């Protein structure tokens, strides 16, 4: 049993936690909810010994302790971070036993000993993986299960999971939940942090809501609902319902992009698609269905192996030409594929413009001014646009990326999972922004697996399965059941 009592912590210029008390009980999943900056990260850093509280007490089994990262490890408190830490070139077995390879009575460790031990551990938490496979060949989800198995079999008593589902698709999430439930049965206390409140409802036993560094609610998950959680998180109701966001559409105009019989290796097998100005098309489909590849091809970032792509009546070619014609691409992995993390916000929001006209003069002052105007328009929250974009929250980083393409008056926008890891008010703002763009005549493509998102923005939904279009549903009728039925049919 780990208890935090009246814990406070402040940073220069900001108070991150004020008088927060929370207990993590063995054999239960405890969800921490709150929007970005509510103090969740600070709390888990204190619970894992990375940060010391300014005041308040941490008790482990009733005994007050002063935690350092090393103490936390000795007390078997483990944190699974968003950035996963595995040795890519080694096998699954090597990773499972990393740092504590089994030894025989001569003190030697052999490959088959390692594999046997790894198999035993994976079985204990119900994870099925080939222990000889190199980790580099595993999917993100499998890597996560691997890490989970590793953490649990280190005899973790408290397992802190920070946004574990950020890049998983629904089947994989269910698999992860199964493993977490099994872990719980072993008497581990699990601390679960997620932006997806439906996951919290499905998985957690207890919850604590943080807002502006204070505990504003908590209790048993069975006594609450997602709406209840949202109300506690923001103090007010933030709606993510179609009626409040979609706001109707216009008559779709000319064809913005036309795909005919597009193939991409074995990922896409003959896809036809017409995208018109003035509509939002959601492409739905799990990893491997070809949805992501379709997004890449629409934006020119990948070339189809067969078939034709027309952008605004001209054959599509390279990513650069597509970008010059006003095709925006906002990738799912903001940090790796979208942002220049250490460059100023204004350089990030100007990048498409800079790329389009390299042979013109540049003034940092004027670039910053344009960025401020753009930022105001999108409700960007930052103290200075000349600071590195790294310091912004996910939602604000995404606004910078949207601003980047609004600056060059992009008319076709391809967004891959645009609200992954983003808090709910920012989500609502981004959805409204996308709808406004659509009404203003832009063609918007959203690759999404999040039902709420699909409901909020879609004029029509194209469901992908195994590299082909499984079917199409008007946005109004796109219920979770309808989408599932279409995607699962075989």
């Amino acid at each position: 049993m780990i208890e935090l009592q009246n814990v406070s912590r402040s940073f220069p210029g900001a108070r991150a936690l004020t008088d927060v008390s929370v207990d993590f009980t063995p054999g239960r999943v405890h969800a921490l909810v709150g929007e970005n900056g509510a103090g969740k990260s600070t709390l888990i850093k204190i619970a894992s010994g990375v940060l010391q509280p300014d005041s308040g007490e941490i008790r482990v089994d009733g005994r007050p302790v002063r935690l350092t990262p090393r103490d936390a490890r000795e007390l078997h408190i483990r944190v699974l971070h968003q950035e996963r830490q595995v040795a890519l070139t080694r096998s699954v077995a090597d990773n499972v036993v990393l740092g504590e390879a089994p030894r025989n009575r001569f003190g030697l460790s052999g490959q088959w000993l390692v594999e046997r031990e790894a198999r035993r551990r994976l079985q204990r938490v119900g994870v099925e993986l080939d222990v000889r496979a190199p980790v580099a060949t595993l999917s993100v989800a499998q890597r996560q299960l691997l890490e989970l198995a590793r953490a649990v079999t280190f005899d973790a008593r408290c397992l802190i999971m920070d946004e574990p589902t950020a890049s998983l698709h629904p089947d994989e999430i269910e698999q992860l939940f199964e493993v977490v439930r099994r872990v719980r049965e072993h008497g581990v206390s699990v601390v679960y942090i997620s932006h997806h409140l439906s996951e919290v409802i499905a998985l957690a036993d207890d919850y604590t809501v943080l807002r502006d560094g204070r505990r504003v609610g908590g209790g048993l998950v069975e006594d609450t609902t997602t709406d209840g959680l949202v109300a506690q998180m923001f103090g007010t109701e933030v709606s993510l319902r179609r009626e409040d966001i979609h706001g109707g559409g216009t008559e779709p105009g000319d064809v913005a992009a036309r795909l005919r019989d597009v193939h991409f290796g074995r990922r896409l097998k003959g896809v036809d698609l017409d995208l018109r100005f003035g509509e939002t098309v959601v492409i739905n489909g799990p990893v491997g269905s070809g949805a992501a590849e379709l997004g890449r091809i629409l934006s020119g970032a990948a070339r189809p192996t067969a078939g034709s792509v027309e952008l605004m009546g001209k054959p599509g070619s390279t990513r650069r030409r597509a970008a010059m014609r006003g095709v925006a691409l906002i990738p799912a992995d903001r940090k790796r594929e979208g942002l220049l993390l250490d460059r100023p916000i204004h350089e990030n929001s100007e990048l498409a413009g800079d790329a389009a006209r390299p042979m013109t003069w540049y003034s940092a002052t004027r670039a910053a001014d344009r960025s401020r105007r753009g930022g105001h328009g999108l409700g960007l929250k930052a103290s200075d646009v000349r600071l590195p974009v790294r310091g912004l929250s996910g939602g604000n980083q995404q606004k910078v990326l949207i601003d980047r393409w609004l600056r060059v008056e992009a008319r076709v926008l391809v967004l891959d999972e645009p609200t992954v890891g983003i808090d709910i008010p920012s989500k609502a703002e981004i959805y409204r922004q996308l709808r406004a763009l659509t009404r203003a005549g832009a063609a918007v493509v959203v690759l999404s697996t999040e039902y709420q998102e699909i409901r909020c923005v879609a004029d029509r939904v194209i469901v992908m399965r195994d590299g082909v279009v499984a079917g199409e549903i008007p946005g109004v009728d796109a219920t979770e059941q309808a989408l599932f039925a279409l995607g699962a049919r075989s």
Partner: protein
Amino acid sequence: MTTTDVPPEVDAATPPLQRRGLSPLMREHLRIYAPLVLIVVALGVVTTVYNPAFLSGANIGRLLAANAVLGVLVVGQTLLLVGGQLDLSVGSLVSVGGVVTASFVLHGLPTVVVVAVCLVAGAVIGLCWGLIVAYLKVPPFILTLGGLAVFASLALTLAASTPIPMPAGMTWVRAEVLGVRVAVIVWALVIVLGALLLHFTRFGRNVYAVGANEEAAFLAGVPTARVKMALYSINGLLAGLAGVMFAGRVGAGDPRGGVGLELTVVAAAVLGGASLAGGRGSIVGGVLGVLVVAMVTDSLSFLDVPDTYNQLVLGVILIGAVAVTATSEIRRIRAARRTG
């Protein structure tokens, strides 16, 4: 640069998106420059106290002229490093450039032609590096290390392993205009053009973008392959120019003249804040890095320190500078996380 107009209707809850004063990026640059300027000034003062001849106009002119070759090279290398690239072949290119210059002069070719040939040949070699890096995805370090070896050998072969004297050739490099050596004027021009390109054109922003995150830059529409080819070509051109200047300064084509220059150039650029990981650095910083190198070398000889210590002092300064940058970087990232 006009003062910024305040956007209308900003309510108190919305952050202004810009504070007063210097930009954080500019402050970072100044933090890098300050210790370099300090080193240069301190060495200058100490050496002058010891030997007043150091701070004479003639000596400063000589110091700058002696380092103009390095100074021209550092501009090209800084551009490359900011773009996440590297060219180690410049040392050998300077040697080859010098040898070619001397032998062409001895064949009686006019100066303009010789200079043009060297610049164009340098640019073409650079373009080849660029093509190979951009399209064959060969790591620049390995590629240009190979190039370094190839051109070192070529220089020795062309010159039959001995310097080619040309006492009457390329004298313009040593000439003075209004009391300033032409080499120094050329260096100054290169600095100005390089700084304009990197800091005052959108091409420069593309260079930073490619260095900071190539994938993101590509997806935003930056012509990453063309940017790389341009960078290597510019650097090759400057290496050709440096070869001519070198031959002109020593009055001969020395096939070993450029040995080791590539490392000094990279060291100077890194001293000036450029990062081997790309996306960081400035022309002014690189030039300050060269001045530090020049001052250390020169003042040590004025202070009668045996020149075997040169490399030691430079190495210590480089390690110190990189360590300081690394720690301030860690602090900066932590601070950014907190405010996030």
